[in-house]
């Protein structure tokens, strides 16, 4: 069922670069702005999302033949909600420290549109294994994005990284406020796009030479 030009590594890297949920698709900006005040929060959120995306993709690709096409979106929502609740309960029970800092945002994973989008665009049409590869790629892409934003905001706002004092002073308190999330996301998006343009131009140039 796979198209020929899509190898597993392509699917995997697609989630991290070409279709990065935060920087390319600009989906799920609410957590990207709200919770990415430090690297640790970004990492924890990323892991939670990775888990939910993985389990939901697995479920949907397994039962895709039984889903009535008219009610596919409610089914996705239910699937995601189930796994989010599982994550929420497990975090609260076994990782109380992580649960404390993530708080309400774990429950918000239910409405992360890129998870639903991935289920509809990919998991519904592909066999189990490619769906899982896609899920991991997407989840990691989100995790790296969150960690990058969190890193910049923590370093600029608090002068620390992962709780360790790096700068020894606080450059700009503004960076820990929610509004700065938009600025950081915007700038990183620009950097991301610029790098890609340069990369593609070089690739084309190389192709032209050969």
């Amino acid at each position, binding site marked *: 069922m796979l198209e020929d030009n899509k190898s597993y590594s392509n699917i995997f890297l697609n989630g991290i670069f070409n279709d990065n949920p935060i920087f390319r698709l600009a989906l799920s900006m609410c957590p990207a702005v709200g919770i990415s005040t*430090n690297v640790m929060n970004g990492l924890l959120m990323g892991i939670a999302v990775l888990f939910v995306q993985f389990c939901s993709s697995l479920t949907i690709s397994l039962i895709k033949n039984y889903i009535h096409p*008219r009610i596919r979106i409610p089914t996705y929502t239910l699937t995601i909600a189930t796994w989010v*609740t599982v994550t929420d309960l497990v975090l609260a029970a076994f990782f109380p420290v992580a649960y404390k800092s993530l*708080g309400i945002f774990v429950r918000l994973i239910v409405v992360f549109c890129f998870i639903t989008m991935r289920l509809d665009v990919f998991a519904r049409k592909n066999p189990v294994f490619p769906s899982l590869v896609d899920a991991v790629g997407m989840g990691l892409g989100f995790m790296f994005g969150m960690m990058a934003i969190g890193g910049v905001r923590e370093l600029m706002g608090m002068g620390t990284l992962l709780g360790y004092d790096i700068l020894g002073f606080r450059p700009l308190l503004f960076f*820990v406020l929610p509004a700065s999330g938009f600025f950081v996301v915007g700038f990183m998006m620009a950097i991301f796009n610029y790098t890609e343009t340069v990369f593609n131009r070089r690739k084309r140039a190389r192709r032209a030479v050969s």
Partner: protein
Amino acid sequence: MKEIIKITVGLTMTCLIAAAIMGGVFIVTAKAKKHNEYVNFQENMLKLLGFDQNNPAPEDLQLCTVYRYLIHQDSKISLGYMIPVQPSDSDETIMYQLLLVNIQGEFVARHDLNISLTQANDENDRKKAITDVLSGEAVQIEFADQFIVAKNGKERLAFLLPGKTPGFKTHINFMMAMNANYAIVGLQILEHQEDPGLGAEIEQEYFKNQFIGKDVERIKTLKVIKEPLPDEQLKFLERKKWIDNDFSDDKINELQKKYQSKDICAITGATISSVAVVNGVKNVATKFVYRVKVLENIISKQNISVAF
């Protein structure tokens, strides 16, 4: 028509499976979650009393919880204090009694409760035990608050008062400790959602320790001032952070006296959070002192041998 049935059955099945999975996970995790909350609460109580790994709590340390309920009975409202009682002065087991007090602060009735100490930690068990002893129609009980009395042997160490106050974003949950003279000996922020770097600074020692030593009369007029903390006071408040602190006991006493009656200095950029905490402390402290005086009055008049 066939389509509709198909869709209905499909969605119902999905919901049922989802419910089964969630229920299963809940059963597995519910106990651990409750335990976590309990441990967290206990840890914070010990921290407030000044015990930690280097300075473990004595074995005689006893924490007695008093629960306060609002009881609506036949269109009358009364207060129900659920108090631990130790019959006579012997080392017999502690049991719970319900003390009914009317709004004017007068004693109404006293009931034995059929509840064990471990059961008393559970809200539903408490409610059940209380409803069992109350007669009359349309009895409604409502949990109001609780306070904890820490006791080392016979000596009363402190009252621990959990409280809640609306902060900048959501509620700030805190717990404070008061000694027998109703002066604050410690403040601990349990849960909050303030902005990191700004409002979240309420967790820091230099803010929390400003409350120490203030008695209830001072708390009534306590307010937030927008002045920077003097260097000397800052160093004094954060003295526990530095291992090689050069404060002698005399110096600590002297500085404590000097800053005891001072108002609370607001956190830079987080006046709202600072004010919220001050108001919460004010509220909890003044109400508690009033209530505990009423309660102690009744206890001594009725000759109840309480465990605290």
